[in-house]
């Protein structure tokens, strides 16, 4: 797919939360719009579309990325993970999600999807996060409701739980 014509739609195929998906996309279609409107995966939120708020954060091959700054065609052949893929099942929460709920780490929940996706990736890299490190990771996101402290507390607790019981369902990376 090295040459794309602006005027035509191209079939883009990738893995979304472990399942193969595909859609027709103009080259200019944003990944965020492809997920939300093309595939109906509306868990990924859009708050600014200029890369600042972090609400649209997804994992592409395990690495957090702004879906609003990514073109749909760039997802070709990749493994994409969104908030819908964090829990072990549609009706179950991941350890981090459950901790968010306990700590009231969300109010309106609009920012939450992106923050969970970033933190999920970070906790895999750094299972022993300090508060300072977490503040920096969450600093890549805007939350207008919580004042952040409950988010940091929830993550510290989740990290501890994950460390003490590695069989917990947060390692379902796909």
């Amino acid at each position: 797919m090295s040459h794309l014509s602006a005027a035509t739609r191209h079939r883009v195929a990738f893995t979304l939360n472990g399942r193969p998906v595909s859609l027709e996309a103009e080259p200019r279609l944003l990944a965020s719009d492809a997920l939300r409107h093309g595939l109906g995966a509306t868990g990924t939120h859009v708050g600014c579309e200029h890369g600042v708020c972090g609400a649209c954060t997804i994992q592409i091959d395990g690495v957090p990325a702004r879906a609003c700054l990514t073109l749909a065609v760039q997802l070709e052949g990749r493994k994409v993970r969104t908030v819908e893929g964090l829990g072990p099942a549609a009706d179950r929460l991941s350890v981090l999600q459950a901790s968010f709920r306990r700590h009231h780490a969300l109010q309106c929940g609009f920012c939450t999807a992106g923050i969970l996706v970033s933190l999920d990736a970070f906790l895999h890299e750094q299972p022993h996060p300090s508060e300072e490190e977490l503040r920096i990771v969450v600093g890549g996101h805007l939350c207008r409701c919580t004042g952040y402290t409950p988010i940091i507390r929830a993550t510290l607790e989740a990290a501890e739980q994950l460390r003490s019981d590695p069989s917990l369902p947060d390692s379902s990376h796909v």
Partner: protein
Amino acid sequence: MVAGLKVAVENWPMAVERVRYVGEPVAIVVAQDRYLAEDALDAIEIDYAPLACVVDPIASLASDAPVLHENAGANLVSDRRFRYGDPEAAFGAAAHSVEVSIAYPRNTGAPMETFGVVAEYEPHEDAYEILANFQGPFSIHAVMARCLKVSGNRLRLRMPPESGGSFGVKQGVAPYAVMIGVAARVAGAPVKWIEDRLEHLSAAVAATNRVTTLKAAVTKEGRITALDWDQVEDCGAYPRAPEPATLYRMHGNMTGAYDIRNLAIRNRVVLTNKAPTGLVRGFGGPQVYYALERLMQRIAVELELDPLAVIRANLIQGGAFPYRTASGAFYDSGDYAKAVDVAVADGRLASLERRRDEARAAGRRYGIGFAAAVEPSVSNMGYITTVLTAEERKKAGPKNGAQATATVSLDPVGSVSVHVASVPQGQGHRTVLAQVVADVFGLSPAAIKVVADLDTGKDAWSIASGNYSSRFAAAVAGTAHLAATRLRDKLAAIAASQLDVSPGQIGFAGGAIFATGNRAKTLPFGRVAALSHWSPALLPDGVDQTIRETAFWAPPQLAAPTESDEVNSSLCHGFIFDMAGVEVDVETGKVRIDRYVTMHDCGRVLHPAMVDGQIRGGFAQALGASFYEELAYADDGAFLTGTFADYLLPTSTETPDIEILHIETPSPFTPLGAKGVGEGNCMSTPVCLANAVADALGVAELNLPLTPARIAALIASPEPALPAANRDRPASLGTVKPGDRTLRGEGMAMVAATPEAIWSMLLDADQLASIIPGCHGVKKLSETHFKTDVTLGVGPVKGRYKAEIKLSDLDPPKAATLSGSVSGALGTGGGSGRVKLAPGEGGVTVISYTYEAAVGGKVAAIGGRLLDGAAKAIIGQFFAALARKAAPESKRTGFFARLFGRQT
């Protein structure tokens, strides 16, 4: 969409004939998808004829200021004076008079989710169905229906069960809901609109900016005997409903937490060329308390008293509640002195003072700030009519109250649903309501289903419904409790008749209904709850049904304003006392919050974690207002903060943890004793932090946001107390002017050609066409006047512009002045520059230039911080192309092609 104000201002949801602010809608494109719609937008060309504009509220009062609405005759659309007690006598007798001048900036709630609307029109019914993330107040439903020219029952407004934050702002979706409704009618199809962030920041809802002068008459001991307010409120280009409510919401509590019986207020409302204002968390409180609590600090400084002692000396005494203020508020409950005592106790204040003393001893700038505020909640629908005279009010008919409604239903298997006329945006409606209702029925909260969407076509609601003025805990949850209690009493009557005991003996717990003291007599809750469905004939006398109970609750304390303009503007009045220690870095102008303590009395706390969540969230927003956030405009009306890179929200690295304390004095006026709590820190925190910074730097006048640039200016010249003669200088003319985005620069380039050759190129249309970056051909209108189309990109905005270039002050082949203008859908620009050509060594010409340019429109709003760089790059490209063109390929060397640019 005009509010209670009687003023001849046409108030359309989109521009008609004349555009009055950047961001005002001028066209709606409906297409199959958003990408196509944006393509179409790019194809629209609008020829604007620039008019003079005014952005400063004080300047808008001048007799020669450009008038926004000719029919209104002036930008001053309301001017009311109020007088309570005998303020003149109090000032006459006072030992001291202390004064502050404030220019409170514009900011906004900036919820992470923007506006969204889906509208449908049914032509046979002439009816609209509009789904919008509106939040109330539902008084606006009437305004919207009127706008759409249908009766209220033909506007079915639906609100989703959840919404990505509001903080008041989602009230502002109303004019857009109307426009999308019209679009659906015209298109003959449902139309969906999701606002983008630029649209949101430029034209959703801003809090009012306000210029205030506040004076106090003070005794030698620091006791305030009178206040004199002069407020100039800037509502932007249209006083859109419910404005000027921001100015009047605090009317009853203009004396704050203090016992002050003499009060004078002058309230002016002005219009300027900025976006219309509306509800934003704190709604009128930040503007008032910034002035009032700065004044308290100034009294302490000027009278050389301890600031906390001044606050304490003036607080309303604990035994005085319920307390009627001078302007008519009826404070329900409180013990302010106790709240302050608890807050400073346990070494909290002592440790702040120790840290300050240590920091100061080490030569660092550390300050302590305090703020006390009364947080009103559950607004009186009638307060806004205080903007009218008693006479006008009589004509318009009385308005008052704050009706709340809630419905509790039981289904045929006896499970419980709750519905309230409030729209959650993250305040935990479901959690709190489930808990409140579960407690009534002795069920677990998990057994209760809370239905949180709202449909004006089917659900119970009133004009006061909605999720605003922190009314959820105090009014809405209380009303749900009322409805549940009524149902429970009926269920008790049923159970009593079945168990053959008296209703008074019936208890509810653990999913069962039983006779207290005789657990053998027990029925499952579901069985009794379902009876009304299955066997209505078995209902005992006096019980009509137990299927659905809708309660309405209207507190009698919320009366209409009196003849003499006293108004109980809100039902509940919570109390906050904040203290902060901050350290100012004199090198960087950065303020570090060392400690922050916030004490709240919000009556009975219904759900501690939710309450603390509201406090932390409010604090974070207030932090933004204090240090980062301003919806900034240039003098020419250009909007400058259209992205989150320009309008900065605090992130987790800037938001410190805070210490939250509570005392509880339950409100006697609400069913559960609760008061609102969500807005308090937006009122108390900005001024508490400003007081701390003022203490650290020893300055008298400071305005928000306290950006490093402002702090640096304050440090550079510590402001002495203003001499009395200067005090009427408008505070808005402060030192640092945000939003001055004039581009200035100079530079130099060397080109391997003679000055004459270069000169002739600059006057040749074809040559210019190949030199100007992004040029689509140059048309020569005269020897010195060119017209061209160019495509330019600044940061994320790339667009096509029409440009005109004129040459003047020609001194061939040595110098010329170039002036030009560009305009396009993305913005406008204009400027001029002087270019000089001087022969250098070896056939090289040294070109030097200076320029000054200004830009407006979208480019200014979203490319702000990139403009300098972009200008430099474009000029660089121009001379690079000139050098390439002027020097034959063979002669060009690295040296000749090199460009020097020095920008200031």
